[in-house]
């Protein structure tokens, strides 16, 4: 039987209260959101916080809304809401692609966007999605708020820019015209973590890709947007040969490790193939040819 080490439990009643508790309790305290990454780690004693601050009552952190030129998502928004959201599916179909293959429906009832990003697992799918979409993270403390790009959010495996007295409250995704996005993942069995996954987003006009990004999971210490891919996409005309080339650039710029999910060579192959497929689908969507 796996049992977490002893800790004290507090339930936060507002974002301010949560941050005040965190500030007062310091580095031995952790927030608990869905608990579907943290509790398994605590059961294995890989995490041993002395205090848990439960943030599930913070109704103000559950939302998906449209502001002028961005979509804003509260940190406590659960996988299931991300999967079901028509607003997200309309602007960023990559979310629904990814959510369909994250864990299983029961886990998706609990796991949250904020918890996923803060867990900072290199195989985490929503981190790859947010990296692809050039999202930014709103981090709050008693001193106010700061906004951090996905690039700067993940500092290393299982490490983020969120400090001991801070809280991730919102994720913002810029809305730009002519966009299309898609996500492809290979897993060992349904509901498992990615062997490799690849997200692509493009923004097009007159049949040309004005701008584009990738986000790959499980190919290095963090989910990564590969700079040379963005460079290659800028100003390009889509074609099958071009998709192939971009896949090759992705493969050449990632550094997967051999582990129980696959060999480095297999993962490199997947990075290439999945990037190619996601790009093809993102372009089709940007051109209104595929839902």
């Amino acid at each position, binding site marked *: 039987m796996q049992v*977490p080490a002893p800790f004290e*439990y507090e339930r936060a009643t507002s974002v301010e209260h949560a941050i005040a508790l965190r500030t007062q309790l310091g580095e031995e305290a952790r927030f608990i959101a869905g*608990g579907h990454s943290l*509790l398994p780690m605590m059961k294995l004693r890989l995490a041993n916080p002395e205090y*848990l601050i*439960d943030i599930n009552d913070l109704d103000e952190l559950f939302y998906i809304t449209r502001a002028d030129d961005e979509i804003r998502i509260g940190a406590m928004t659960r996988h299931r809401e991300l999967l079901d959201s028509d607003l997200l599916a309309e602007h960023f179909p990559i979310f629904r692609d990814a959510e369909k293959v994250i*864990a*299983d*429906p029961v886990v998706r009832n*609990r796991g949250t966007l904020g918890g996923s990003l803060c867990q900072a697992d290199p195989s985490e799918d929503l981190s790859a999605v947010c990296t692809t979409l050039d999202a930014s993270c709103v981090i709050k403390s008693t001193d106010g708020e700061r906004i951090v790009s996905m690039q700067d959010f993940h500092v290393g495996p299982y490490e983020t820019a969120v400090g001991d007295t801070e809280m991730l409250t919102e994720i913002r995704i810029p809305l730009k015209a002519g966009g299309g996005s898609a996500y492809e993942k290979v897993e060992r069995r349904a509901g498992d973590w990615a062997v490799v996954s690849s997200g692509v987003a493009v923004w097009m006009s007159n049949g040309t890709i004005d701008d584009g990004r990738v986000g790959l999971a499980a190919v290095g210490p963090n989910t990564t947007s590969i700079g040379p891919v963005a460079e290659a996409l800028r100003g390009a005309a889509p074609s099958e040969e071009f998709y192939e080339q971009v896949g090759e650039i992705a493969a050449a710029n990632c550094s997967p490790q051999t582990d129980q999910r696959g060999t480095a060579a297999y993962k490199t192959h997947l990075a290439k193939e999945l990037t190619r497929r996601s790009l093809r689908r993102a372009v089709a969507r940007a051109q209104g040819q595929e839902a």
Partner: protein
Amino acid sequence: MQVTMTINGQEVSEEIEPRLLLVHFIRDQLGLTGTHWGCDTSNCGTCVVLIDGEPVKSCTQLAAMASGHDITTVEGLEVDGELDPVQEGFMQCHGLQCGFCTPGMMLTARALLNADPDPSEEVIREAISGQICRCTGYSTIVRSIQWAADHETDVSVGSAS
């Protein structure tokens, strides 16, 4: 710490250690052993209970987190001697062999039918995809849930309202 929650329509209030997992609270402290405990790693789904009407793996929730909420376990499916159509369906269509996965399967089925009274086979298979059955090969479970959909009464066990 003190937790208070509704289990199968009855309020319970208990003193617990904060680290107590919901599955052990239900089984060991309340003695409701219908909720099974299997993999302990949020993979098999036999520990599924409904929290405010939604299926959740209770080996991966703290009892403390459930305080103030409405919990339904498999014992809550039968009301006043009347079996839930899902239970009836599992009997009619041989939805179980050893029965280990059954409590979780039935609760997920109940939640599904509350949200979607006429689910397609694909929707049923997706809904139970986070739960493992080593015996049936799933086909009879799917048929059992279809049977329940065809024989729904006006019960609403586990719905959040």
